[in-house]
């Protein structure tokens, strides 16, 4: 049986995860903490919801409750590293689910807390979170690349227009300047585009 290594989260890292819990220290809160620790996770409990999570957090189990919702969303906004959120719910009505969506949860566990299913939800939440992070990273890279391609095209057409160059010559000129200034073609292109904007600025059109 070959194991697929293509997913983002490796099970062997389970005990390295930094897990935080925002839940009242009632029977469910304690049962949740007990089982996280039984699994071997480093779990830290907070109540009432703190202003911010101390340091790094991989996962956050959070009680879904209108009373603390504003504090929780603030806490998530301020997080140094966004954690994968697992919502802990006692109802499944639309009003509750609206709060679940607003906390951008990756998994949901119900009350009363039962040990069975907690580990599975934790693993899936962390994995989905990491997959999404990977995709977002790729998306930013692609967006940046697209913008720079656009600038290069624009810079080439500026050079072609002002210096009467062919497209290939314009590109070679960009590359030569980048090498001379020890920078990237993208930077040179951006400089040309900016300069062109400045040169063509007309107060009456501003």
């Amino acid at each position, binding site marked *: 049986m070959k194991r697929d290594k293509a997913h983002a989260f490796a*099970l062997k890292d389970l*005990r390295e995860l930094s897990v935080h819990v925002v839940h009242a220290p009632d029977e469910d809160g304690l049962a949740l903490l007990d089982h996280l620790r039984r*699994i*071997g996770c480093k779990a830290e409990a907070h109540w009432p919801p703190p202003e911010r999570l101390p340091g790094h957090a991989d996962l956050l189990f959070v009680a879904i409750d209108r009373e603390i919702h504003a504090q929780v969303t603030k806490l998530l906004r301020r997080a140094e590293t966004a954690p994968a959120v697992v919502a802990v719910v006692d109802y499944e009505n639309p009003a509750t689910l609206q709060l679940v969506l607003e906390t951008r949860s990756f998994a949901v566990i119900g009350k009363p807390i039962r*040990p*069975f299913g907690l*580990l599975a939800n934790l693993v899936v939440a962390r994995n989905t979170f990491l997959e999404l992070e990977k995709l977002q990273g790729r998306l930013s890279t692609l967006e940046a690349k697209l913008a720079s391609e656009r600038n290069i095209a624009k810079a080439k057409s500026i050079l072609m227009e002002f210096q009467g160059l062919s497209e290939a010559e314009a590109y070679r000129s960009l590359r030569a300047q980048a090498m001379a200034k020890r920078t990237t073609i993208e930077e040179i292109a951006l400089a040309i585009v900016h300069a062109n904007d400045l040169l063509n600025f007309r107060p009456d059109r501003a």
Partner: protein
Amino acid sequence: MPVQQAETPIRVGVLFSQSGVTAVVEQTQRNAVAMAIDEVNADGGIDGRLIVADYADPRSDPKKYREAAQAMVDAGIRILFGCYMSSTRKAVLPVVEQAGALLFYPTLYEGFEFSPNCFYGGASPNQNSIGLARYLMRTYGPDFYLIGSNYVFPYESNRIMRDFIETEGGRVHQERYVPLASSDEDFARAIAEISSQPRMTVLSTVVGDGTARLYRAYREAGLDPDVTPIGSLTTGEPEVALMGGALAEGHYTAAPYFETVKTEANRAFLRRYRSRFGAHAPVSACTEAAYVQVHMMAIAARDASDNVDDLRTALGVAEFDAPQGRVRIDGDNHHTWLWPRIARADASGTFRIVSESRTALKPDPYLITPPSADWAPSATVA
């Protein structure tokens, strides 16, 4: 607590198969529970109250386990002993949880479970798999062949073994599964594969009736246990008694208990068991765990009461001088601190212990990747 007059007995349910694929081992577990109950009763019971057992024979079928457990809790029973295969435990647990009862499960299993209503008396993988893989790797080299019965325990056990072997620089050549109700043909292919590679150690999690088939096929193929032995978690004394020493000779088993453990508690345990169930009645780690769990329950009930919540709390700190050595329950995860051992069968089918832990080892049922030095065996080569 004042001693009560002999009054309402404490009723317990006992769920072990006497027929079906795993009956050989489960019969010994049933025997051990019956014997332990008699010992507790002979000792005055639980503060004067006798333990009375209801026995069911669920015939290795998960559905029958569930039905039998349901009938027991419906009859007001709140303390159950039983189950060998994980599939049967999974069938019983919801019934027990629903009723607020307790299940005492006396069998090694794959870990990754916790129920507030269950106490686990058998080895977790960190208490048997890791030590076995390490010992065989050091002694017979880095090449392994994994074979198991087709169900959850062998899958997870093999995942752990494979992880460990590969981390330590060894190699798993093949991972094969045979049906629980196996035939000789199922093993022919595996044996052919094992024969095709020199120096390949076999790790077996084959359970029940298939065990004898595997060892027979191995011997008939002319394989040599001094070169490519079988190491197993599930080939205990009952399985060896069934197939005979000639087939078992030279092969290894890892378990917290063997008949050959030299403790006073074990000598007394074996003497009583054999005077009752026959001079040659085999006893394995699963048998011992079943026996130990009854005594643990009795100790906790004397400390507290037979009310499930009180019992659960008292069990969390219960200790007992078991035949394998002093054991205690881990209050956090409900599993048991046990003494890892490795033994090799001789020509008479007797397990000679070749390595044992110096201390009882904490159960870690949620262990995914074993640390390198989880186990400190002392070489006690006979």
